[in-house]
């Protein structure tokens, strides 16, 4: 099948539709606008509903209603809007409802700006709202991967009855790359016996996150913890790039991982043994990617569009066995390949490694 040239934001929309998503609730915010524009046209074509909400707070609660009623549903926003959604995401996690939330991360804190950033990493991976919960977080790095991961996002949400966040940035949303869409398949959405769709002669169903008796809430928390442990053991995903014989390993996700691939190529051309780990799941964090490298590499260099957030997860994975360095740009500035190469050269084979 012929490739088509698509913007990342549009690919999110098309990927969602092809994953069987028929409901979108959202509030406008830059830099994800092409996604609602696309779905406002596309969803009615497939008998779905696109609804612009009065706020991000309302949007996430509409998602809660639609998910509880058994739909494959999504919303999308960026930084400030995602912050507003956090209470709702906590409810979704507590009530164990599947849904997909897209965050095209922009610069913060506060109104920040609309330029690309990765500074919502903590918020995404630590459970940005209240209470003990986890959200599965996927970080695509190309327009093609967006299409593939949107399907995975909805499947994981259903499999674990858990919210899944797709974390990108303004660059990923705005850039165009050719994608192979493949044949549109008839997606079978798994049965949802728990959904509150009206009793229709059956048992009463309840969508709820309130457990007023402490013993009961503790049991619920422990049940969620078992689920999160299962996800952590089964769903770690990452890409390895030129790790063969690497002495210095870059770690980066999303757009920054693309820049780091160029860094790796350039370093290899100059004879420096540099490789890259690109986490695809930010939660669960791909700790398994690091184990085979222990004792075989000199050090790690984490590159992010933030002041250093994922670097903490790398340090947890490495657990003191190798130095973990950090290089970041923030405020919407991109790490430039040449600067990262400089940083690599500073560290490569140097003191402290």
């Amino acid at each position, binding site marked *: 099948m012929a490739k088509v040239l698509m913007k990342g934001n549009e690919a999110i929309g098309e990927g969602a539709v092809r994953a069987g998503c028929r*409901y979108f609730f959202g509030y406008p915010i830059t830099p994800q606008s092409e996604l609602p524009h696309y779905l406002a046209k596309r969803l009615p074509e497939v008998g779905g509903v696109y609804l612009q909400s009065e706020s991000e707070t309302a949007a996430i609660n509409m998602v809660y209603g*639609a998910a509880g*009623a058994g739909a494959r549903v999504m919303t999308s926003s960026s930084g400030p809007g995602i912050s507003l959604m956090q209470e709702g995401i906590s409810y979704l996690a507590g009530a164990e409802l599947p849904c997909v939330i897209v965050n095209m991360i922009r610069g913060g804190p506060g109104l920040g700006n609309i330029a690309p950033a990765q500074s919502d990493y903590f918020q995404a991976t630590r459970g940005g709202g209240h209470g003990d919960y986890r959200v599965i977080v996927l970080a695509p790095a190309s327009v093609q991967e967006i299409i593939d991961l949107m399907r995975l996002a909805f499947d994981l949400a259903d499999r674990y009855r858990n919210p899944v966040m797709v974390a990108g940035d303004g660059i990923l949303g705005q850039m165009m790359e050719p994608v192979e869409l493949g044949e549109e398949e008839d997606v079978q959405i798994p049965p949802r016996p728990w959904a*509150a769709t009206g009793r*229709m002669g059956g048992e009463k169903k309840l969508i709820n996150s309130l457990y007023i008796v402490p013993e009961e809430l503790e049991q619920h928390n422990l049940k969620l913890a078992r689920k999160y442990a299962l996800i952590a053991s089964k769903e770690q995903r990452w890409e390895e790039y030129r790790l063969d014989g690497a002495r210095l390993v870059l770690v980066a996700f999303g757009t920054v991982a693309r820049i780091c691939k160029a860094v790796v190529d350039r370093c290899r051309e100059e004879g420096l043994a540099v490789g890259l780990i690109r986490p695809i799941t930010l939660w669960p964090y791909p700790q398994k990617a690091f184990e085979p490298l222990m004792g075989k590499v000199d050090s790690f260099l984490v590159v992010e569009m933030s002041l250093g957030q994922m670097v903490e997860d790398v340090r947890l994975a490495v657990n003191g066995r190798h130095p973990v360095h950090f290089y970041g740009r923030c405020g919407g500035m991109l790490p430039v390949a040449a600067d990262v190469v400089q940083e690599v050269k500073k560290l490569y084979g140097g003191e402290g490694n």
Partner: protein
Amino acid sequence: MKKVFTRPRSLKDIPTHYCPGCTHGIVHRLVAEVIDELEIFDRTIGVAPVGCSVFAYNYFDCDMFQASHGRAPAVATGIKRVLPDRVVFTYQGDGDLAAIGTGEIVHAAARGEKFTVIFINNAIYAMTGGQMAPTTLLGQKTTTTPYGRDKDINGYPVKISEMLSVLDGTAYVARVSVHDPAHVIKARKAIKRAFEVQLAGLGFSLVEVLSACPTNWGLSPAEALKWLAENMIPYYPLGEYKKPAEVG
């Protein structure tokens, strides 16, 4: 022997947590009776709020959602958009609907969402300990207006039925009271009309029910009903603020 009074099918046979003299029980019963009468029990989905009626999901025997504070109209929107042939209602108090959830209720009404809202106005936050609500009357003492609500500090009570009835998306808006049997019967009629409006697909429907909170008002149940009639009804006039030609 003919049974003349029984528990509605749509209510569970369990004790509620409501205080003596609280009128939530009456309103629950009216909603349940209407669901029974319209024979929509099997396809009705309710949304409970945060507040005293948070446990409404335990009392109504239909499928239920528990929503975050103020967001029941957004949750109901999501449900109804996915399941347009089901009957959806929210049950919300005045803190939930008229303070934190003002945005959601106004926009659900403006969109003409085809669900029914039961709005309990008892002029106080009850579950959290008797604080001032957006509907608290001027001069009314609460735990956060110990000297009485002062317009210069707290502004004026919010009249939801009047506000929402001017929106084009609303099809039926009524304010009723449950302080005596005659008014309870009228309240039941209004609730039934609201559900009928939804069933006819005419748009958004809301019934505001003036309700008593003896515990937080510091009155006996009988005094509370009298206080409601003498103080709330003059500020919150009863009646149908909007109704489509097709009903009543």
